């Protein structure tokens, strides 16, 4: 299946094996106790992808249950626990840490020409906090389960009977919050302190701007969720009235606290993805990014605006109509920087040399899917239409277009982009493109049908759409959409399994990767693939990270290198 040329010796076969971060030290403890940001990044990547697999399995259970009217494979309670765990795993274990903790950890210090992040020990600690949080969250299945939805709304979460499960999940969210905060602090300090000579703020790759804006959000917003779940636990354990009206609390207060974190969290999830897309589009069309400063500042603008729009999750919660109007108005302001980014990416393609490598196909998919997610956000930010669409499948479709079509597609694109750098191996381009196509088609079939399902009036978090109280015509109508949505999810799952297959295959049989297979100009493409333990043997050339004119293609190496007619000078522009 994969294209392996066995007749020709792979490049580097004649030269003696070079030490890299994978071979630098051996043994299981050299990984578990490592302070190397690259190894920590790889451990994060493997762990997060494992969690993604688990969350995806829960999603498949949900789609199987909803494929036909009537109870299929899950009881009502099992369904409610399945969608709760799908949400908890995907939000807290996968998407929030995804790009910064895995790819960010691996790439960020190398992009800065640094040997490591500013606080390597804190980095390892934050990984183990993630592991602790993951174990706690998933173990809730064995202690009665949780059926509150990932939003943990009170009073349902404080009055139900599944006390153990809810305490485990709240504790998990608390611990995962610290993991996120530590990663954020680490990256902020690294970017401030460890930039090499010559790399000014406006010579950083845009991925770093995105990670920087994300770091600010992680550090400033995450403590709020920590406090909120701590209060929730206090209320459950000691019966002190904070949110539960039966004890004199206010359930709407919980929603304010929850969304004050969880709305910025949406941008913790999507901003790094946007950063990846800026890299992919520029590198894979060999074209200087258009509007660098506008893209960089729009990341910061999004980070700031995202703090003051949380109330749009609560238009129907009983908060005052005036607050609804104010929140609706501010919500629209977030649309602008997102639109600016999309236009700048488009302008980058203009007069480029656009390749259709797998990473680029994901970047182009992102442009389509993110545009749909942004535009349908207008329907939900608008007061009159949100009332009808709130808590329906329209919302489910919208945030899957953002979280999955946006954040996760970008991450998968990023994995394909940096895979040669991380593993030193090339994967099958052919299978990569097929998998991307399967995911793109499957994704749209799964979730575009859900827009219609929602505007037709199907509420979310429903185990079934048939029963004594249901109108049979409605059951039949919803059934059609759900059927095709499920079919789409199977196509998408096939795509993901294909990716897992060829990526694992490439580890053992893939061609050796050159240092710079795509023609990237940022510093990580100047060190070997995989990078040596200390990243750079000689100081890298800092310059405009999007000036591709200094590179030329080397047929023998199957990669790009510095033009021979240009002089190598450390620190040159």
């Amino acid at each position, binding site marked *: 299946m994969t294209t392996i040329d066995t007749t020709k010796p792979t490049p580097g076969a004649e030269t003696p094996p070079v030490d890299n971060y994978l071979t630098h030290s051996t043994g299981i403890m050299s990984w578990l106790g490592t302070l190397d940001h690259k190894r920590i990044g790889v451990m994060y990547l493997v762990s997060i992808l494992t969690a993604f697999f688990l969350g995806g399995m829960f999603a498949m259970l949900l789609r199987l249950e909803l494929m036909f009217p009537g109870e299929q494979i899950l009881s*009502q309670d099992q369904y409610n626990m399945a969608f709760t765990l799908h949400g908890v795993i995907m939000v807290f274990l996968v998407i929030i840490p995804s790009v910064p903790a895995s790819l960010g950890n691996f790439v960020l210090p190398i992009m800065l020409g640094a040997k490591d992040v500013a606080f390597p020990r804190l980095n390892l600690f934050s990984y183990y906090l993630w592991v602790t949080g993951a174990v706690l969250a998933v173990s809730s299945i064995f202690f009665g389960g949780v059926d509150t939805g990932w939003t943990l*709304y009170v009073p349902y979460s404080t*009055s*139900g*009977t599944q006390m153990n499960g809810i305490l485990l999940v709240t504790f998990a969210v608390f611990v995962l919050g610290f993991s996120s905060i530590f990663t954020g602090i680490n990256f902020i300090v690294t970017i401030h302190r460890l930039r090499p000579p010559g790399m000014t703020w406006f010579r950083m790759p845009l991925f770093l701007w995105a990670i920087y804006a994300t770091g600010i959000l992680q550090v400033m917003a995450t403590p709020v969720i920590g406090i909120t779940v701590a209060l929730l636990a206090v209320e459950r354990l000691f019966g002190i009235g904070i949110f539960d*009206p*039966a004890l004199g609390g*206010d*359930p*709407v207060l919980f929603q304010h606290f929850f969304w004050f974190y969880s709305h910025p969290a949406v941008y913790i999830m999507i901003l790094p993805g946007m950063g990846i897309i800026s890299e992919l589009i520029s590198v894979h*069309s060999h*074209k*200087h*990014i*258009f*509007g*660098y*400063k*506008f893209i960089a500042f729009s990341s910061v603008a999004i980070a700031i605006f995202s703090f003051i729009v949380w109330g749009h999750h609560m238009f*129907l919660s*009983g908060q005052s*109509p005036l607050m609804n*109007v104010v929140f*609706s108005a501010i919500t*629209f302001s977030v*649309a*602008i920087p997102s*639109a*600016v980014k999309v236009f*700048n990416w*488009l302008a980058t393609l*203009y*007069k*480029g*040399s*656009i*390749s*259709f490598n797998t990473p680029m196909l994901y970047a182009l998919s992102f*442009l*389509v899917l993110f*545009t749909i997610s942004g*535009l349908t956000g*207008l*329907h939900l*930010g*608008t007061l*009159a239409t949100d*009332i*009808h669409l*709130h*808590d*329906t499948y329209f919302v489910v479709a919208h945030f899957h277009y953002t979280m999955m079509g946006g954040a996760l597609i970008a991450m998968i694109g990023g994995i394909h982009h940096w895979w040669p750098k991380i593993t030193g191996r090339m994967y099958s381009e052919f299978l990569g493109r097929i998998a991307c196509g399967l995911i793109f088609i499957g994704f749209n079939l799964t979730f575009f049908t859900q827009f*219609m399902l929602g505007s*037709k*009036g199907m*509420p979310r*978090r429903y185990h*079934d759409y048939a029963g*004594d*109280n249901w109108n049979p015509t409605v059951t039949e109508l919803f059934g059609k959409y759900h059927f095709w949505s499920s079919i789409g999810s199977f196509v998408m799952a096939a795509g993901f399994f294909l990716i897992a297959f060829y990526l694992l295959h490439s580890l053992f049989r893939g061609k050796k990767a050159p240092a710079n297979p795509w023609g990237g100009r940022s510093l990580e493409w100047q060190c070997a693939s995989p990078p040596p333990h200390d990243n750079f043997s000689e100081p890298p050339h800092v310059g405009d990270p999007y000036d591709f004119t200094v590179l030329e293609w080397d047929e023998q190496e199957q990669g790009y290198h510095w033009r021979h007619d240009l002089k190598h000078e450390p620190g040159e522009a």
Partner: protein
Amino acid sequence: MNLLSPMFLLLAQTGGTGGGFWFPESASTVAPEVDFAFDFITGISIFFFVLIVGVMLWFMFKYRRRGHLPSMESPTHNTPLEITWTAIPMILVVLIFYIGLKGYVNITTPPENSYEIEAVGQQWYWSFNYPNGATDINILHVPVGRPVKINLRANDVIHALFIPAFRVKMDAVPGRRTELWFEATREGEFELYCAEYCGTQHSQMVGKVIVYNQFAFEAKIDELANWLDKVPDEDLHKAGVILYNYCSTCHTVDGSPLIGPSFQETHELFKSGGTRKLADGSAVTVNEDYLRSSIRKPSDQIAASAQGVAYPSSMTPNIADQLGTRGVEAMIQMLMRLDELVDAEGKLKKVERADIVVGTEEPQ
């Protein structure tokens, strides 16, 4: 908007009341306004989607990679262009916000002369209470052409009342009072849902709105207010079948397990004079007194299931208030005489109010 009108026609055929590509049928005064806002935003969205993806596909074709040559020279920034594509979306979103605001003001401002109905959400049914004392479960009876204001309450957790055909929705929050209003524009039956996740049976917390003309509406709520009094004592157990809507999300009549004990089990225990195990380990004889006290004060005696564990939660504490004194008696009669009310397959025989109420006249 002339430019976009073909797209409107293509994707948003919401002119009539029958719904279209996006919407369910519409039957309230605010629905056309909501649909217009939706179609307007959808029109803008389609325009921008076609523009962005069209340009992308065009560039993908025109500037596809040919060999390993460096890309062509072109500017890397252009401030007037940036300002333009910042300003145009800004103007559009201000317009969209304004349209949404105008619709919202209408949707949230009930007219002075609205007819008021109280809606109470509890796990897992809606009860609707009318000013004349009438009450019904999961079915909302409303007059056509008259503004109706629904005052929402929740007894346990958060619920949300959602009527898609009216394009209205509002949370019912414990400890708070919320409201929604609508004016139905035509007679008929429309879907009604709970839209805020509320636990196990959330997907069965579903009902319907029935819109009547004014006369039929008055007659209906009159019947609902007084019908139990007009049921002769010997038929009271049949009235229980109609009131069973209050109970059906948690109690079956065929012996299969649900949230609470099946009525069949209770009935057989009553017949045989047996005892029921309680969650606290004690046991209680199932007799008429037990039935009455377990409806009036459900949390005092929580039954244990066959496996000996407590059922998940006790019944809504104020269920007796909702049923009324005679309603409670009807339920007790039903539990005691259940064998007369089920058919050979163990299903409840159909009972119509008109069959058991004496001395009612058909509404004109």
